């Protein structure tokens, strides 16, 4: 765990309980039981574990969608409250990409109005001058054609939807991107394209990422460090290569045995493939 240098995101002793009653949530089911992790600037932390291990719960706490029962979540030393109660610059600093690409976008809104909502909510990030041109530039950076702007989620493929979701998240110039199983619902080929896009954007926008996945192969491709979660606690944490090649915890070993081979090349900083992709 990196100490010393100033961390971007710092999660300390996080406890989240589902169900149960009362302020103390007695009798509930503990989804997260004392998780601590940190993400340095421009670092990607992969959070892996099987379903039900509490990874998504951690992500939702960081994004402010869930209130933890105990523990602190800080960003550059400032506490992150619930979404909507954060000061605007903190609200912008942490953005999230969701698992299901199609339902991440309001089915009644066009891509243009999705992005317009972002700019209306955070006028600081709104482009000066021609917004249509700025929108097209933003879409092009995600490898999307300009004509996508007038379409709705139902008319787009899963990969395109996920590119739009990433565009929405990056439109407010965040410092930390939380990706909750962001590529899990996609076809393998599209998965690779989105991973390459994320890797490219991470470099260009100096993003830190909290990358949550159950897929060790995917995490291997994109993460600098890996934390392995099981039943609400982190059982192992370390540099990606070390954890995935020489795991110390038996659970990590079991996960690795269950996964496919990890010999996929780490994505280069190549450009995103054409607009028709996705």
């Amino acid at each position, binding site marked *: 765990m990196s100490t010393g240098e100033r961390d971007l995101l710092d999660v300390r002793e996080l406890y989240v309980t589902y169900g149960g009653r009362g302020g103390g949530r007695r009798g509930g089911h503990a989804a997260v039981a004392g998780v601590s992790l940190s993400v340095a600037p421009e670092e990607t932390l992969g959070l892996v574990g099987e379903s039900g291990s509490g990874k998504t719960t951690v992500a*939702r706490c960081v*994004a*402010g*969608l869930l209130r933890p029962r105990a523990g602190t979540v800080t960003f550059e030393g400032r506490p992150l409250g619930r*979404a*909507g109660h*954060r000061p*605007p610059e903190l*609200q*912008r600093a*942490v*953005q*999230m990409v*969701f*698992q*299901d690409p199609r*339902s*991440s*976008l*309001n*089915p*009644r*809104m066009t891509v243009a109005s999705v992005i317009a*909502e*972002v700019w209306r*909510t*955070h006028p600081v990030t709104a482009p000066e001058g021609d917004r249509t041109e700025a929108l097209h530039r933003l879409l092009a950076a995600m490898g999307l054609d300009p004509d996508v702007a007038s379409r*709705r*989620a*139902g*008319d787009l493929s899963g990969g395109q939807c996920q590119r739009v*979701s990433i565009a*929405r998240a990056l439109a*407010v110039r965040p410092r930390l991107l939380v990706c909750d199983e962001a590529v899990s619902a996609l076809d393998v080929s599209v998965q690779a394209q989105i991973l390459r896009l994320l890797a490219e954007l991470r470099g260009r926008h100096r993003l830190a990422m909290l990358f949550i996945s159950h897929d060790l192969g995917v995490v291997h491709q994109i993460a600098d460090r890996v934390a392995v979660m099981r039943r609400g606690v982190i059982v192992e944490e370390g540099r990606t290569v070390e954890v995935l090649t020489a795991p110390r915890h038996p659970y990590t070993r079991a996960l690795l045995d269950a996964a496919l081979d990890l010999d996929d090349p780490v994505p280069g900083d190549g450009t995103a493939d054409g607009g028709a992709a996705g």
Partner: protein
Amino acid sequence: MAGLTVAVQGPRTAPRRVRRPLLSLVPALVVGCYLLVAAVGPVLIHYDPVHTSLEDRLLAPGSRVSGGGTAWLGTDGLGRDLLAQIVYGARTAVLIGVSTVALSCLVGVLLGAVAGYFRGVADAVLARIFDVLLAFPAILLAIVIAGAFRRSVLLVVVALAATGWITFARVTRGIALSLRERPWVDAARVLGVPGRTVLARHVLPFTAGPVVALATLEFALVVLAEAGLSFLGIGLPASTVSWGQTIANGKEYLETQWWISTLPGIALSLLIVNVGILGDQLTARYGRGRSDRTG
């Protein structure tokens, strides 16, 4: 609008566009006729409920009246034309039905959406209120309210809406509860979109289908309840023509002059049945659970 393009492109949604038999259009047509009559009828037919002509009383349908015209549907005990009463009654029924449903809908959808989306204390309180009010027999509450004050159209609307909004609130709350878990709502919250905007833009539009279907069913109930109140003589002022009042006027002549109660009764039943079927059709098409499909 977009539903059309989706239907053309996606084979998944294509079966939805199968041609429906013409018979299923009947309810919509009948309801349309009623609306037309309610809108234009009073312009074409002159009727004054206070003007009575005693030599024309209790005429059978089709008889000549003293003024020279024909009473196509007969006259009542005070010599007033029945066709005119039915036409003017249609206007009253539609007017009260629409305004009551609009009022119930506004209150119900608003409270239901707030309870379902924001949860917390507001939801706990509102949900209990819904449950308690639902346990009240609706027509009894309407009778108490309508009977306690001076008769007026507004009073009837308020009395009927007093319980009508609960169904809207409960349905909307249920939809809002499921919609608030959708990723696009989460995404808007992470962006910091204010709660009211999230509710208005990302939640409420998706309640439209079920709410419209429910409004239709509720309309039928309201029209029936209004006729009931007027029949009891506690709803509308006597100067307002209402099917319920006409039916009540004819109850002493049921054996001999059957048309006075029967004809407005048929008009009422036809409207209720057709609106009910229309509501069921709408529920089947836009009811719960299908509100989120792309469109």
